[in-house]
């Protein structure tokens, strides 16, 4: 118990120190920007990880909430001139409400059917972004999203934005941790271990799944908000089916049911294309190969896989030492 708490404290402290170190130590705007994107993707992966890793529900349409967050804030702050911070509240409420309405029937499905249901939802939302062009700017995209400001602090500079995003990530990590160690989190993990047993001991699994669906929608909306005000331009393509698949991939490749897995998965899937740019034409081939190889040899995801390798080599070292 106490060991666990101590471990979490050390982890969080290390995390904070790394954020501060990166933010203050890195001077190049390009690298800061990549790390900001990693932060935004981490938020997405965190939310989806709660849903997939802990509640065991696959969503193939999660980019919809990302988009809802981005478009709500874009429309409210860009078109109607409302303060972005007020727009953030609206964006999150909107995403949570839609998650509730959609989740109510959809989460009764299971397995691939749930995948299909969420996929359909994602497609519908994306088509609305594209077709409702008088409001959303259609497929050409939405121009004119204002910059974020908080009193005297402007988030125009890459560094400030980096800190903003990563502080949000830190808060989200803490939130997820708190949920997981609570009564709700235990019930959630029990669904993952055995939904039937969980039902039989009195967990209202449907309601719980719905709650966590709404929570992950909220995180998605926050990520969308941060993305919209960072790039200051959004178009439907950034929230399409492939983005949903990418989110699922981040979660699985990082390691399901692990908060750090979300971070690792998001980092890998954000950095990999940047690194692979050098291979030009061969980028897709290499990317696909890496995805397959990681999944074949580390089915538990990178977090578990790397830990296994580490422990294995330590054991071997010990054996050699003796």
């Amino acid at each position, binding site marked *: 118990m106490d060991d666990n708490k101590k471990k979490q404290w050390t982890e969080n402290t290390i995390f904070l120190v790394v954020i501060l170190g990166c933010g203050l130590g890195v001077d190049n705007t390009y690298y800061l920007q990549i790390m900001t994107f990693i932060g935004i993707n981490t938020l997405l992966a965190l939310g989806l990880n709660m849903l997939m890793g802990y509640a065991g529900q696959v969503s193939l349409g999660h980019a919809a909430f990302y988009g809802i967050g981005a478009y709500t804030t874009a429309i409210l702050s860009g078109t109607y001139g409302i303060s972005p911070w007020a727009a953030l509240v609206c964006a999150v409420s909107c995403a949570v409400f839609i998650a509730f309405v959609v989740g109510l029937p959809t989460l009764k499905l299971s397995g691939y059917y749930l995948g299909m249901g969420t996929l359909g939802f994602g497609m519908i939302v994306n088509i609305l972004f594209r077709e409702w062009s008088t409001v959303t700017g259609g497929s050409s995209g939405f121009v004119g999203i204002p910059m974020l400001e908080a009193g005297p602090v402007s988030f125009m500079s890459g560094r400030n934005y980096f800190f903003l995003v990563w502080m949000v990530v830190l808060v989200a990590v803490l939130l997820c941790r708190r949920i997981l160690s609570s*009564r709700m989190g235990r*019930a959630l*993990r029990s669904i993952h271990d055995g939904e039937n*047993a969980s039902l039989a001991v*009195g967990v209202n699994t449907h309601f719980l799944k719905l709650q966590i669906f709404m929570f992950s929608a909220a995180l998605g909306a926050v990520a969308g908000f941060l993305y919209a005000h960072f790039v200051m331009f959004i178009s439907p393509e950034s929230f399409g089916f492939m983005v949903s698949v990418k989110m699922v991939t981040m979660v699985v490749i990082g390691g399901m049911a692990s908060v750090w897995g979300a971070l690792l998965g998001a980092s890998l899937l954000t950095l990999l294309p940047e690194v692979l740019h050098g291979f030009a034409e061969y980028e897709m081939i290499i990317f696909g190969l890496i995805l397959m190889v990681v999944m074949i040899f580390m089915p538990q995801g990178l977090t578990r896989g790397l830990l296994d390798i580490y422990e294995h080599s330590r054991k071997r070292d010990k054996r050699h030492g003796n």
Partner: protein
Amino acid sequence: MVTDSVKAFSKQSLGSCDIECPKDITRSHDILNVRNLTKMFGGVTAQDDISFSIEPGIVCGLIGPNGAGKTTLFNMITGIYRPDSGQVLFNGRPTRKMAVHQLVRAGIARTFQHVELFGSMTLLENVLVGMHVRTKSGFWGAVTRMPWVMREERRAREKAMDLLEFTGLTQYAHRPAGDLPVGRQKMAEIARALASEPKLLLLDEPAAGLNPVETEALGKLIQRVKERAVTMMLVEHDMSLAMGISDKVIVLDRGKKLAEGSPREVQNNQAVMEAYLGRG
């Protein structure tokens, strides 16, 4: 043919059959009334017009050959299956409209034939999940960690540790439940079920896979649970255990109730012996 004669026989010999005397089953002090329960799967009748009732505080054995419909009956009492006809009354109230978790809150808990602990969670956490219906904090409680939430959590932990002590599992509290030996897992399931403070506890083959020593310990545990005023229903193939601790025994065969009565009565029942030995 055979079943018909068996039915006739059982009616004669046991006299107090509920089908014959409907007024009996409305006795308000019964904790559980099962009335004319029928369930079909595809074309197969899994439960055929089953009726019985259980008085509070007793241990009721439910026996019968494989495929007799014992687990199906449990699933209907706990609300996982909906009966095609007939009804279940718990404390005099029909349960038809209640969801599984509502029934657990009302006081029905169960264990599984094949252990279904939450393998990746510690034993303590398993018992805490069992306490789910008796605790309140939700999403906002988890996020804000208000003092009352922390108090509730502390109390829940204390109670869970008490339960683990009661079942003799204290030393495993912080081990992942999946790593425990089977015997301990069976006990752990009972601890988890007790955590929901049930009035009626359904045990599905608790002794399956246990060695004689463990079985004996299980018998003692059931006895102690009974002392806590928990009514129990028990599906069991270990006859010495079932007959030894049950106050009343119900025999099912092929979805039908074959006999009901005290262990002694049932043991001497011709039809029951036939069902177990005669027809193979």
